[in-house]
């Protein structure tokens, strides 16, 4: 699960990680109010107004129809108000949101941490994630803070250092020192960085996160180390242990159809194609998307109805798929193992009748236990539904249907 920057920073702070302080606001008035508060607490005179959406590239991204950037420096209370007004309730388009962008409902008013002082401020990169090949967590660090890490990895891989963490003992002090030295730090900044990394790993581990990306980590002009941005992914499977983190879910950031599917215990991911699909099992669902493409269509979604495909789940699936206006045909692909095809077929017929007229052609492929019986039920239902037994047949039917539709 993704959370917002302001939520991520609150998780970090709880574990003693120093952050760029800030307060979230949802109106320009509130933004000015929290900026005043922040000023009295931290002494900051300038502020950074940061759009809170679940996507990167906010600093370079622009508010739709204007030149306003998603992250901007405010040098006065008036600036705070103007920028917040420009951003709140508007759509921010970044390279990660796609052209449709994302609506900004909240801004984070943060203190200015790039103030002048005895040394030059410098940005670094730190992340913690699971190394799937090694079955343990890895800390990645780079002196190239503020840059897109994929680009650093591509052009200057030698500038990324990795430190793997033994799951039995966790992060050791020498490892934190190793990373801090590799970043070229010394003196107070070095000590601060060791503290920062140690606290950061603890936060990652104890919150059951699956990814932390702190980019940039800033060494301030007075040698403090702090998180200016924070991207945190939580392990969905571990949320039951962290009710306070589970509450951070912002369904505004998710596709409404995906939220609805989740409420019906369906695993749905919306895609851009024209053929919807409904499948039991994640692997077969991906394979079904692939066969739609090979048949000349484009998959409109991923939808795994799970082990117990019945009239209720099929009906919920139909309703969700049909809400996507791009869907011109639907392929149902069920491999009946424990679940019997005749039951699924009856479920399809029942769901179809419950919804009424379904405006797009439907191809139902049922294979496995009682497949023939399932096909018979579909064929005799009198509905505008094509049935298939073999996977290949289903692919041919999809091609035929698309040809008939002139697609």
């Amino acid at each position, binding site marked *: 699960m993704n959370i917002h920057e302001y939520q991520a920073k609150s998780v970090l702070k709880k574990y003693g990680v120093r952050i760029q302080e800030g307060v979230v606001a949802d109106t320009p008035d509130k933004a000015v109010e929290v900026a005043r508060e922040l000023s009295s607490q931290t002494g900051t005179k300038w502020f950074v107004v940061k759009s809170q959406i679940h996507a990167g590239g906010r600093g370079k991204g622009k508010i739709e129809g204007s030149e306003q950037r998603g992250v901007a420096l405010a040098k006065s209370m008036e600036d705070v108000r103007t920028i917040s007004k420009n951003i709140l309730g508007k759509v921010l388009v970044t390279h990660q949101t796609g052209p449709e962008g994302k609506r900004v409902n909240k801004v984070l008013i943060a203190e200015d941490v790039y103030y002048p002082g005895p040394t030059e401020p410098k940005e670094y990169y730190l992340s913690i994630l*699971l190394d*799937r*090949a090694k*079955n*343990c*967590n890895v800390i990645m660090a780079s002196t190239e803070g503020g840059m897109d890490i*994929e680009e650093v990895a591509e052009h200057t891989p030698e500038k990324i250092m990795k430190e793997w963490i033994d*799951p*039995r003992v966790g992060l050791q002090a020498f490892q934190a020192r190793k990373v801090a030295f590799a970043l070229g730090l010394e003196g107070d900044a070095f000590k601060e960085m060791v503290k920062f990394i140690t606290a950061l790993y603890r936060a990652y*581990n104890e919150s*059951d996160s*699956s990814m932390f990306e702190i980019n940039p980590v800033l060494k301030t002009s007075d040698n403090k180390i702090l998180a200016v941005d924070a991207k945190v992914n939580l*392990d*969905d*499977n*571990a949320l*039951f*242990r962290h009710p306070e983190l589970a509450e951070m879910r912002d369904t505004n950031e998710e596709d409404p159809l995906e939220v609805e599917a989740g409420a019906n215990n369906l*695993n749905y*991911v919306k*895609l851009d*194609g024209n053929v919807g699909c409904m*499948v*039991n*099992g*994640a*692997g*077969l*669902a*991906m*394979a*079904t*998307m*692939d*066969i*739609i*493409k*090979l048949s000349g269509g*484009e*998959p409109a979604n*991923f939808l*795994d109805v799970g082990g117990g495909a019945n009239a209720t789940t099929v009906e919920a699936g139909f309703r969700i798929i049909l809400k996507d206006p791009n869907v011109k045909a639907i392929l149902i692909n069920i*491999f*009946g*193992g*424990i679940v019997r095809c005749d039951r699924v077929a009856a479920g399809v017929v029942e769901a179809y009748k419950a919804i009424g007229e379904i405006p797009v052609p439907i191809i139902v492929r049922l*294979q*496995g*236990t009682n497949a023939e019986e399932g096909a018979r039920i579909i064929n005799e239902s009198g509905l505008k539904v094509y049935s298939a037994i*073999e*996977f*290949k047949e*289903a*692919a041919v039917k999809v091609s035929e249907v698309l040809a008939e539709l002139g697609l």
Partner: protein
Amino acid sequence: MSVLVNKNSKIIVQGFTGSEGSFHAQQMIEYGTNLVGGVTPGKGGIRHLDRPVFNTVDQAVRTTGADVAIIFVPPAFAGDAIMEAADAGVGVIVCITEGIPTKDMMLAKEYLKGKNCRLIGPNCPGVITAEECKVGIMPGFIFKKGTVGIVSKSGTLTYEAVDQLTRAGLGQTTAIGIGGDPIIGTTTKEAVELLMNDPETEAIVMIGEIGGSMEADAARYIQESGNAKPVVGFIAGQTAPKGRRMGHAGAIIGGADDTAEAKMRIMRECGIHVADSPAVIGETMLIALGKK
């Protein structure tokens, strides 16, 4: 021969008396699996499905001589169940449970290091040796005894592949569902290696999906070992977008190397017969075996 499980294996079920455990235990017994008992803490001493129930895996193993355990306990307790089975000396541990926290799996996998046991899964359909022993949740009737071994990350897609093989007249030795989580006990490569070393297995089907590097690792192993047996491969998720989790926790494209396209290219380079469509897995195996 076959691998991991056979008609002589003695199986216990962890989470025996729960609804999932009971249902699938019954199905396994009907398939002919030598299921010798089960474990549910606090219910030791009773009988369930005409088999003894124990409080601990240790007691179950000492009393029944079980050498295989299948786990159906809920995600919050599954890591613990895996370690308990390993501690009791169970040789093959099959974990069906879906949704185990990554941290728990990381620790469980670490705990297993140096112990004489093999973990299959979690989040997998299990292992079956055709017409001998089913330790999993797959529909037994689609399997026929034969000479093709199967390794797969997926459940229903495995059934699809097996069904195509059986219809093509190709029976199976053992099918190993390794699971779709980011951390799993047995990798694609390790499972392929087991089948490569099994004298009864003459050909292998390897089914993967987007995310991670396990299929590429297995492909390189197959090439290095001299392509001793024909291997047919398929990767699901050719149309999956980057950065979105496709059902399985591990099925997410992170970089350029874990797309379906990249994996299929590496597999081809390593001499694997790649099926472009999930509908032609059986057919591709017939071609690989020179039967078509």
